[in-house]
């Protein structure tokens, strides 16, 4: 069965990469299971989408239902759930896009008779971050400290709407992929923006464990879930963890320990002064960190991540400008 895939949020780098990857697959191999790829977003993407058909539509409006009906879409890949960033959207409008967009999209899918599969690109942010966290989160666990606001709250809401949709339409396959942040200079991810600062503000007395995913692995997992039936919820991340202090040393960037009280404001100011942009939710992650267990991805989904967190980080390190302390190390 050949599929017509709708990818949302293609103005973002990662979503457009997924859409292009699927389109390339459709071009290269007619038996791949993908025949057409349609990308939607509210703004025109900066880069060439290749074989992807771009439709300018706002998923917060019922227009998206018409797109699904007209294009005869049977697979929806929802990638328009993103942490807000200051230059793009403020907190409330990113919540609007994340939550209301998902509600409208799912409403359209529920009406549609053609949609048979929904793949949701969620985030490991749903686990929150707190001192009560277990070392590694499994898919069955919920956030211990609770998620109060911002992107983690959005992600939890989006997932709960998706699960509600799954109850109402049990015939539709739902794959929820909770991905760790990819660390790639081309992708607008909060942590990679943070790690590019010349000086890294850290919370004094805390050394979070961080986990990254490789773009190649993410693309492969999304493609796999489109072309094959993989219902369920899966964590996607590279194996192992890296401590923030270790990451800073490997990059050769000095850290600036700041007191936990007022860290969020200070982090924003420093990032702003350094000319970069920090996601408003990042400061929580920088206190306790988070790591997830990917055994379900291996055992049930059937995908073995090719890159460990350390590999991902090493590639990132080679791509970015070395920090001012880089001369001290063995390299």
């Amino acid at each position, binding site marked *: 069965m050949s599929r017509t895939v709708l990818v949302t949020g293609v103005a973002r780098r990662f979503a457009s990469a997924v859409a292009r990857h699927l389109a390339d697959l459709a071009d290269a191999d007619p038996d791949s299971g993908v025949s057409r790829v349609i990308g939607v977003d509210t703004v025109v993407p900066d880069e060439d989408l290749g074989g992807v058909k771009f439709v300018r539509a706002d998923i917060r409006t019922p227009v998206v239902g018409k797109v699904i009906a007209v294009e005869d879409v049977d697979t929806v890949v929802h990638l328009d759930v993103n942490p807000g960033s200051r230059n793009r959207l403020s907190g409330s409008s990113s919540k609007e896009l994340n939550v209301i967009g998902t509600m409208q999209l799912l409403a359209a899918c529920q009406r549609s008779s053609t949609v048979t599969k929904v793949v949701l690109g969620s985030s490991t942010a749903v686990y929150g971050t707190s001192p009560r966290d277990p070392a*590694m989160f499994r898919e069955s666990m919920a956030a211990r400290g609770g998620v109060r606001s911002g992107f983690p709250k959005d992600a939890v809401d989006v997932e709960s709407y998706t699960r509600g949709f799954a109850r109402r339409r049990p015939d539709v396959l739902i794959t929820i992929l909770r991905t760790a942040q990819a660390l790639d200079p081309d992708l607008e991810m909060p942590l990679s923006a943070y790690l590019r600062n010349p000086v890294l503000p850290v919370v*004094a007395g805390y050394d979070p464990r961080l986990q990254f995913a490789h773009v190649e692995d993410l693309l492969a997992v999304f493609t796999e879930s489109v072309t094959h039936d993989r219902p369920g919820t899966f964590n996607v991340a590279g194996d*192992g963890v890296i401590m923030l202090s270790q990451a800073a040393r490997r990059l050769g960037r000095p850290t600036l320990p700041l007191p936990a009280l007022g860290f969020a404001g200070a982090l924003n100011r420093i990032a702003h002064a350094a000319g970069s942009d920090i996601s408003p939710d990042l400061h929580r992650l920088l206190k306790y960190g988070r790591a997830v267990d990917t055994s379900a991805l291996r055992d049930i989904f059937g995908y073995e991540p090719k890159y460990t967190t350390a590999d991902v980080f090493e590639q990132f390190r080679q791509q970015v400008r070395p920090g001012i302390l880089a001369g001290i190390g*063995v390299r």
Partner: protein
Amino acid sequence: MVDERKQIGSGGRAGRGNRQVSPSSAARSLAGASAASTPGQKKTGQKKTGQKTGQKAATPKKAAVDAKKSAPAAKAAAPRKQAAPAPKSSTRKPAAKKAAPAQKAAASPKQPSAEAPPSSRPHLRAVTDDDAAAAAAAAAQEAERRTKSAGAPIPAGIPLDDILSALLGAFQRVMGSDWEARLATLLHAVRMRLSGEYEVDEFGFDPAIVEVLQNAVEPIAEKWFRLEVRGIENIPADGGALLVANHSGTVPVDGLMTGYAVHKYTGRHLRPLGADLVFALPFVGQIARRMGATLACTEDAERLLTGGELAGVWPEGFKGIGKPFTERYKLQRFGRGGFVSSAMRAQVPIVPVSIVGAEEIYPLVGNVPSLARLLGLPYLPITPFFPLLGPLGMIPLPSKWIIEFGEPIRTDAYEPEAADDPMLLFNVTDQVRETIQQTLYRLLVDRGNAFF
């Protein structure tokens, strides 16, 4: 050669004068003479002395090896190299430095032959007592000159050589004979740390930190607490096991000591399971993670145990550690028995651990619950010394410690599904608790007085 040395030697100890003349006065006359000598004379003199030293080189070497087995041979041979170009006072210092690792007795006889050119007398001659004295004295003179400029006079009675040799001897004793290799390793390790080239596991456990900590804790455990460890054979050499211990002492020093004992006697790492407060506190949480601690929750416990690690748990928690001194060695409720179900699911043995001594380190005589609530702590301790003496009150009292690892309680006899049987869990929990309580009483009798 040894005979020759006997001839040229003297009755007195080399470098100390000949009992009639003090080294400094003898040296002053000699040094003055050598300074006045002509270059031509000096050259011949040096050449001959150089040859002579070449012959004699074996003697100091042998002496050096005898004197200090660990001193590297290269060091003993060093004076030989220095002897040939020997310009007067500029080489004196390096030569003295190289000779210093060898003991004084060995260093002194070879010095005069190598360094004090008998320029006034061009012939090959036996090294006399005066020469030995001269060498020492010239060094003293130079030391005097140097210290004058530095502004801190060293008493003329202690030559610079002595100080140097003592320092180098001490350095070698501390670093061992292979100090160069060790220093290189250390520098390499520091470089690797600074460049972030080390591995942590998924819990954030950093074995290098544990090694450092182990060395730091050793004197405290062995000298201050006089830690005695029993039943170490009850810890399995490989595979997972859950160590369950009593908790006491206001500050969780007992966790640190148990980890130390386990690592010292078995070489394995104990992975403590801590309360969430530990990970919420700044610095404490960071260090705890690096030491291998993780949150005391079922998921983490099972992950560690199925991974074949030794996990340590203190089920009394804050009830145990913050109990008043009057209730010492009375076990509190053992949590909700979650540790038993974790061990059963992972099918690993439970090792009861009884710790005696931790109760006395900070006797808790009072508590300020209102202030503790304000700070978000479970209790705010008052010990006989703590707020009273300020930081001094934070020094733990030197109680005598005994840690006994009891006989493992096997859980693999039960099915993993038995972990869902609450009655069984309560029974096993009580069994572990009773074992620890009875062992505590026995150990208390064995120990006698808490401090002596």
